[in-house]
């Protein structure tokens, strides 16, 4: 058997996993499952894994629905970067619709939502509540990008 050649240190680039998904609702579940499989293997406790599952599914759903407007020719790209400190997940769409900054700062309120016709608007707020860090930016490819970070506390 050849020597497994396991280097003791690794640059970030070598730890990057990329997942390309079609812009079709349902495929956010693949990103959710890949994220949770990685997080479990990295030793995150189960309640943190559940939080990551919800955050990833919300971000990918938004990329499909809003960023790519359900255009199935457009891709959602999810990049996982693991390190000893935790896991970074970047979700990028192709930006058919530009993410409005105000939308990232809303604090939805159930009393108001009950009066309103739109019962939604919980996704970004949930991601921010559940993850340790959340940043919005423009992806290298020009679309919207959401970066979420979950720390390994040990």
């Amino acid at each position, binding site marked *: 058997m050849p020597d497994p050649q396991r280097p003791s240190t690794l640059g970030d680039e070598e730890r990057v996993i990329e997942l390309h998904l079609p812009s079709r*609702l*349902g*495929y*956010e*579940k*693949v990103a*959710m499952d890949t994220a949770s499989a990685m997080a479990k293997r990295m030793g995150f406790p189960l*309640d943190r894994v*559940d*939080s990551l599952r*919800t955050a990833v*599914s*919300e971000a990918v*759903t938004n990329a499909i629905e809003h960023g790519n407007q359900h255009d199935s020719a457009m891709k959602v790209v999810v990049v996982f970067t693991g390190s000893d400190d935790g896991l970074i997940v970047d979700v990028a769409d192709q930006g058919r619709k530009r993410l409005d900054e105000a939308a990232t700062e809303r604090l939805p*309120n*159930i*009393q108001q*939502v*009950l009066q309103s016709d*739109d*019962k*939604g608007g*919980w*996704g970004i707020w*949930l991601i921010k*509540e559940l993850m340790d860090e959340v940043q919005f930016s423009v992806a290298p490819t020009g679309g919207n990008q959401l970066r979420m970070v979950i720390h390994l506390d040990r």
Partner: protein
Amino acid sequence: MIDDELKVGTRQRDGVWIIDLEGDVTTFAEDAITSAYEKVTGEGAKYIVINSRQSDYINSAGIAILIGVVTEVNRQGQKLAISGLSAHFQKIFRMVGLAQYADIYAGEDEAVAALQKLVQAA
């Protein structure tokens, strides 16, 4: 292929109507959940339990559907409880504030027992 359908069933236990949800609670669940709610309401339901059976994927669109049910429940003067959620989704439902409008119970039996007390008091 990747879009599991949600199975929704309705049944009655001594004055309390139960809406069973099995599968993903997402935007695709809207018609099924709304129809089940309308069905039990048409049967005269006053006390309703939404009972999740192994739904390990509930997203914000699913939560929006349930908030829609709460709106109707308030309008109709019904009483709603929710049971069967995992610890994670119990937490999410509390974060969102749904727990202010529907008591959350771990199991169906507890939810039904709590509502039956109200049936008897009525």
